[in-house]
């Protein structure tokens, strides 16, 4: 086991790449739950974002249109969840779960119909990397961030923007109020249901962007179920991060780091004993539990999170 395998520039670069989809899902979760709606369907939003992004990239050969299609798909799925949760006041967890199953079945079905025999095209328009020439010279840290994808940078920017929005702006305050004390918020004239709709739609957009990252930046193709549970890891990151964007970033980075280690350490030995590859894969999960247990402890969700709201009259 070498130092390079543990914290080399390659590992740090991998950490960012692996953290990004989880971070975007977590940001979606933060926005939605801060307004009081539990959105378990993040996984499904990621998946439809990944798929429809690929379809749009194939049809239009334009990255911009592909990304727009991806986030639109995420918004649509989240919109269905929003209607169920906000208008029909249904059980938000079951609704989310059902939409996840729907997303998986639908994208797999359409994948087979459209690309069944040939697979997704190999020349899809992809989201480009951002090359920062200045940094290439910087030893070690430069390598880690000099060649990251545009969406990686976008997600970092989004962390800052959403953090500022939620905690430093009036609309953000209103959103949080809706999540904490909707009755009181309504009394002072805040449109509870409308705010929640926007929040849930935004969460769909963010998660879908994470999915598009996977299909358009990383894999440049689509395979069934390619999100592999990142939506749920994102939820865990959201809770770990105490429902704040910065916290979600920290949590995602820790998880991403553990995953990166699980690959960089393949082949490493401790003394004479080779660590089995399957056990290496448990690293990110154990690391996360230790981190939460050791450093985070209790985290409190928004007070009205998950409780359907009954308006008194107006929206």
């Amino acid at each position, binding site marked *: 086991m070498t130092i390079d395998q543990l914290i080399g520039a*390659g590992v740090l670069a991998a950490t960012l790449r692996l953290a990004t989809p989880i971070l975007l899902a977590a940001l979606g979760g933060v926005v939605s739950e801060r307004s009081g709606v539990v959105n378990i369907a993040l996984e499904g939003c990621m998946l439809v974002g990944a798929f429809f992004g690929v379809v749009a990239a194939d049809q239009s050969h334009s990255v911009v249109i592909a990304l727009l299609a991806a986030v639109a798909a995420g918004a649509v799925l989240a919109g269905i969840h929003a209607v169920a949760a906000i208008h029909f006041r249904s059980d938000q967890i079951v609704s989310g779960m059902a939409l996840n199953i729907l997303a998986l079945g639908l994208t797999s079905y359409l994948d087979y119909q459209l690309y*069944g025999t040939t*697979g997704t095209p*190999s020349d899809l328009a992809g989201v480009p990397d951002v090359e920062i020439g200045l940094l290439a010279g910087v030893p070690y840290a430069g390598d880690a961030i000099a060649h990251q994808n545009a969406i990686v940078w976008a997600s970092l920017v989004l962390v800052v923007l959403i953090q500022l929005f939620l905690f430093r702006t009036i609309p953000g305050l209103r959103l949080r109020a809706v999540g904490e004390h909707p009755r009181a918020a309504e009394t002072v004239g805040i449109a509870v249901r409308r705010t929640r709709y926007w929040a849930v739609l935004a969460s769909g957009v963010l998660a879908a962007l994470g999915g598009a990252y996977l299909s358009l930046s990383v*894999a*440049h193709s689509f395979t*069934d179920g390619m999100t*592999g549970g990142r939506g749920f890891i994102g939820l865990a990151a959201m809770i770990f991060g105490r429902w704040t964007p910065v916290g979600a970033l920290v949590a995602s980075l820790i998880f991403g780091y553990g*995953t990166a280690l699980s690959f960089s350490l393949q082949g490493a030995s401790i003394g004479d004993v080779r660590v089995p*590859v399957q056990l290496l894969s448990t690293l990110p999960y154990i690391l996360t539990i230790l981190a939460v247990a050791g450093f985070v402890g209790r985290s409190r969700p928004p007070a009205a999170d998950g409780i359907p709201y009954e308006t008194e009259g107006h929206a």
Partner: protein
Amino acid sequence: MKRALAFLLLATTVVAACSSGNNAATSTPTASATASATATPKPIQVGLVTDVGGLNDKSFNQAANTGRLNAEKDFGLKTSVIESKKQEDYVPNLTTFAQQNYDLVIAVGFLMQNAAWKVAKQFPNVKFAIIDGAPADDAGAAQNLPNVANLFFKEQEAGYLVGVIAATMAKNKVGKATHNTLCSMGGIPIPPVDHYMAGFQDAIKTVDPSATILIGYSNDFVDQQKGKEVGLNHISKNCDILFQVAGGSGLGYIAAAKEKGVYAIGVDVDQIDVAPGTVITSAMKRVDKAVYDTSSSVKSGSFKAGDNFFSATNDGIAYGKLDPIVPADAKAAADKALADIKSGAIKPKTDLTVKP
């Protein structure tokens, strides 16, 4: 609450009773199929039961499905498929086809060996075939049955062929392959996967013992990002030719090669179109041919139970289309290796030389 249950059950039974006329009955399973009682010959029925990866896995299950569809078209068979969702489904899915007196039931995947053994014993008049396996009893021992064809592939031979191509290119520093380092990634460490990589490594050691060999696993057959990370890791260690044996995850391994401008090798089916210019060839395992041939053997009466090997000798394995960058000498070496394997002069190893 009780009323709801009663109502629901009543409703469904009524619906079920009303429509139980049409299809072949799932309700009267008989162990012995009396197939030819009718005067008009009915078309041969072939049923495919896939493993949990689904039909869209872009390699294994998909190849089997292709074979089925081709056989249906060419031989006028009636065929069907059931995708298993979890391991508990293997036995009931195989039983479904057997109960309906299908002529041939194909279990796609070596995880289904035990399930196939159980069901094949219960339906001695139905023919079965297992891809990548033999009937395995509850203790895990292979038990050949008179109605089961064990379709084994010598993946190590396919791995050997592409290993020859790769090692020859690396040795001669063709194109981007300048570091004489080759690597492979498996999905999970199971025999069908490891055999490919064992043959690959054997070939490299034979062609150029000084070459560096790396190996990794993504521990996943679906996750492309994980495959890509393993790939980027290997490339950072100077690997120039990446051999993927990991299904969907392996597509990520190929994506890493594409991103860094080096080469990759596909698996199971011809994957040159996955990344033109990056994929130089593929280690092919003609699962589609196995399904196709076995289906036709049932129709023609030449079904052979027991071990059936698909290997170099019967075109059961091959190397896929070559990218233009592959030089003539590499191709020639591969063709010679193929001839040697057919003649028995070379027996590619099935055990990994370089372990993770």
